[in-house]
């Protein structure tokens, strides 16, 4: 990580970091990593040298090529003789796909409920906010574990459970923003013209509050990756022979003393991905909302 040095003016409210027009190097690296991840996810079938379940028991636990292993297996092989690199690529695909679907489900449901609460007020709002408070007061991992225990594990259910993560933040955020927007002149003006509320919300209010929601997505996305990988790590998420980054770490931990290369690449992939999205989100937030700069920095 590069440290940006700059002159500091003591005793004034000047931000410590000057605001730049150019893309900072760190953010550029984050974007590059995320593009790479996306390409791997989209082209897994073309890029991966082997299938994710392709076993070769004669090639078990080979170290990475650079550490004296077989050049045919760049990152070595796992306990069943499967190529770690290929599994990593498919794992990235699974984890990214789940995180995307999860973010989509949560943000759409949450935003919709937020709009409903702000539009109807009264008991609808009370009920939705009660659910929001309840959700916020329970650790989501526990709820997810309970649901997976009661209903049994299936990929579709797992996707829905992960999708519900963070809906309450979107709902609370949207409700507040819509209430604010409704009190502003433009919403009132359009309403006086007799435009249908749904149209007002979609065409006028939503574009105005979208930037805040986008920033929330960048906060939510890494957390969903961490939730999915945690559950898969515990053996309660994605099930073998399918693979995900968390599951690779979970499988690799039993071999950590002898074949660390089974687990470490997956861990690094998770770490870099969540880090990149977080940094990108921070940067985006500073760009989209200058008023937040002093409060956060």
């Amino acid at each position, binding site marked *: 990580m590069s440290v940006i040095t700059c002159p500091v003016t003591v005793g004034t409210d000047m931000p410590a970091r000057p605001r730049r027009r150019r893309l900072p190097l760190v953010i550029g690296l984050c974007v590059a990593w995320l593009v790479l991840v996306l390409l791997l996810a989209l082209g897994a079938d073309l890029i991966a040298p082997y299938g994710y379940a392709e076993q070769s028991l004669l090639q078990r636990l080979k170290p990475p090529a650079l550490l004296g292993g077989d050049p045919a297996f760049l990152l070595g092989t796992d306990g069943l003789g499967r190529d770690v690199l290929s599994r990593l690529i498919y794992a990235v695909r699974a984890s990214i796909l789940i995180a995307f679907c999860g973010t989509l489900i949560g943000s759409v449901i949450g935003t919709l409920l937020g709009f409903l609460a702000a539009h109807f007020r009264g008991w609808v709002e009370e009920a939705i906010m009660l659910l929001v408070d309840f959700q916020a007061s329970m650790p*989501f*991992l526990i709820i997810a574990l309970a649901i997976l*225990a009661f209903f049994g594990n299936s990929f579709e259910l797992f996707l829905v459970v992960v999708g519900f993560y963070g809906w309450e933040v979107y709902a609370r955020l949207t*409700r507040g923003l819509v209430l604010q927007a409704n009190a502003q002149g433009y919403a009132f003006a359009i309403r006086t013209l007799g435009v249908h509320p749904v149209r007002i919300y979609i065409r006028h209010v939503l574009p105005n509050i979208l930037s805040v929601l986008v920033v929330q997505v960048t906060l939510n996305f890494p957390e969903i990756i961490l939730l999915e990988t945690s559950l898969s790590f*515990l053996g309660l998420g994605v099930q073998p022979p399918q693979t995900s980054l968390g599951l690779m770490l979970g499988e690799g931990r039993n071999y950590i003393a002898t074949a660390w290369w089974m687990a*470490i690449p997956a861990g690094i992939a998770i770490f870099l991905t969540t880090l990149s999205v977080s940094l990108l989100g921070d940067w985006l937030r500073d760009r989209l909302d200058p008023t937040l700069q002093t409060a956060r920095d």
Partner: protein
Amino acid sequence: MSPQFVLTKLFRAILTLFLAVTFVFVVLRMSGDPVAQMLPDDVPAAVITQYREMWGLDRPLPEQYLRYVSGILSGNLGFSFRDDRPALDVVLERVPLTLELGLTALLLTLALGLGAGTLAALKRGSGTDHVTMAFTILGHSMPNFFLGILLILLFAMTWRVLPSSGTGSVKHLIMPAVTLGTSYAATVARFTRSSLLEVLHQPFMRTARAKGVPFRRRLMSHALPNAGIPIVTVIGLRIGALIGGAVVVESVFAWPGVGQLLVNAVAFRDLAVVQTVVLLIAFTMVAVNFLVDILYGWLDPRIGSARREVSA
């Protein structure tokens, strides 16, 4: 702090708890017939009917719900079929170990988070500040199970200074507590820094300085109490993450606490134990949130009436 404020908060706490119980009941009933799940496929229908009567599953749903709630109120949370003992006993005997781990991690978090955050805010723009901020970002992105595995690889496998799993001594506690506390400490440090920075530029801080109030006193009795509200909020909000994290960390380090029990119970579908753990955690969370609310009123007497904030 008005009694009305405390009562409103208490009412909300009880309501949340009631919702948690209802949630578990609904999920339990939606997930299928527990009798069919527990008994083998070739059991005669008469036995199934008998079990259904015994557990009151033939009654109408509202009655089942009432019986369920009154059962919970009297401490009856079902039988763990793996241990063949009341689920509550199975869970409660694991609580001390989880508390030991959780409280150590919490203390570590507060010391590290508050300390580093304060230092970073006071020396804004310095090397200390940059290192702290880098730590908060890295700590927040690091999955705790990966951190745990890395620590095991280094301290247990390579240098052999700490045990990789189990419990029994202070040495056993170090790695799990650090793993659990890291991301939490990162969040606390970040919030401490930003809310302290906001307070440090307030006019009353300048006034205090102009009056000649010594630095330590300005920090301890002027700045920190005023920066306290957001910090307490984030500590309270993240307790849930700490509990969720404990589930993962206990599994990584084979720490025989409630979290490890929950993971095993989920894997074996020991539903009585799962529901007991869920309700116990719900109760803990409600209690913590209630305490945080009361702490607000104490930290800032202006928070008297319980009104809901309009902004997020």
